[in-house]
């Protein structure tokens, strides 16, 4: 899991699997980064997500909104898109094609 910050956004590159094996690590990162209202999760490399992974993203979304920001997903793979579609979560998250687009969404939201 790679993490960088840009302005008031924390950018997390998610692992191949987003499930019980990675959820704690991801949560710890954004809970510690209290000064970042915008969480950008790059899902380009994520090929598997289960309900625990979805719950982790929802937890990040709620946290970001509490901080006055948003959680934005970037470039989910086909497998992940199918899960978002089936669970109706594609209507819950903002999804951007690139990190730059996600940062632009965050900037718009801020303004």
């Amino acid at each position, binding site marked *: 899991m790679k993490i960088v910050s840009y302005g008031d956004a924390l950018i997390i590159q998610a692992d191949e699997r987003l499930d*019980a094996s990675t959820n704690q690590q991801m949560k710890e990162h954004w809970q510690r980064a209290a000064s970042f209202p915008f969480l950008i999760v790059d899902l380009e490399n994520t090929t598997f997500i289960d309900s*625990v992974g979805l719950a982790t993203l929802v937890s990040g979304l709620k946290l970001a909104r509490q901080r006055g920001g948003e959680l934005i997903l970037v470039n989910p793979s086909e497998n992940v898109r199918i899960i978002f579609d089936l669970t109706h979560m594609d209507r*819950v998250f903002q999804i951007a094609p690139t990190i730059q687009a996600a940062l632009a969404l965050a900037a718009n939201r801020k303004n």
Partner: protein
Amino acid sequence: MTLDSLATERARVQQLEAELEEMTVMLAQSWDQLVSLMQDAPGPPNSTTDIVPFLESIMAALDAPMGAVYLLDRGDQPADWFVIPSEGVSFTALRASLNAALERCEAITVVAIDTLSGYPSAWLLTPLVVSGRAIGVVGVGFANADHEFKVGDKALVRRMTERVASQIIAASLRESEAREAKIAHELQIAGLIQRSTQPIHYPQINGIDLAVDWRPASIVGGDAWGWVQQPNNVLAVFMVDVAGKGLPAALGAVSLHTLIKMALRLGLTPVEVLRHVNSEVYETYTAADLLATAVILSLDLSSGLLMQANAGHPPTLIRRGDEWLRWRSTAPPLGVLASIEPELHALALDADELVIVYSDGLTELKTDSGFWGEAGLKRAAELAFGQSAKQVLRAILESAQTAMLRGADEDDQTILCLQYLGR
């Protein structure tokens, strides 16, 4: 060899024999004192007072007038010390030397440590090593600062502290086994409670053929299903899948099961039930980082009208003619948004049409060519078309079992087959 050197050698041998004799006596004395303690297996050291009997034995074996035990903090308990005699030994004066023994993880002798009376003393400090880690120090002291600790003294104290350490390891192991047994027992009870909430009998209603398989991945699971007979000849069935595994997911499933059943008993429609239950669980799920998928179907047995509301659950499959209809989720899972507004699916079933509701544990089964998926489930169901719901269910479960990769992790699995037999 000269006579002088022979005499020197003889004197050395005599000295060694004397030391050996002394050591044997000391070991025997200390062993006698320890035996009674060994018979009552001590628990892990909750405080230094648990180790004091051993310290007293060591002091007696060496005839040492002073002793000390120091235990580092053990997570839930702070660092702790005990000195004998309490009015004669300054722990503050000893502390730096105790820490030095801990850091070096080996026995050290220290002289000129001030006692409370102001006189210097000599100490032998031996770390208490458990599983390769120094958890504390046992020390014995003499008021005479010139006291010399013999090789035998050091060996004796080392052996006795090793003995204490092995007792601690054994006691910790016993405690951890007892804790695991307690957890396993509690899990069994939780499993029984969860099982008791799952229907044992299917509704005895003319016009339907129902078969269900509910299979938690372990003793408890996050899946649940149920049915309620509503007024006006309506049968409602539901399925939930709480994210995660183990007790939190099982508790979530049991509470959700109860909430949905109560709401259905009040005669609410599938959409109303999901809306109300979501607002009921939203705050708790937010605090607990939980979410749950849920699907509720109601079937009017008089008209065959089937209605569904689905929050994040896998699509309901309806076999109509040669086609599969898919009723997908129209709302996110429960606990994601503060309020949800699922859309209602509805259609009038014809006689012998089959409805399949399942949890993702079944479609996410790993096979050697990827996930079993909805396609695998449909193929399996097609093998038993025209037969009873029970036979369709059996065909699905058998195919899943055959396709599943051996040794792959399994999730909770629930599948419900409902056949409408006609008006």
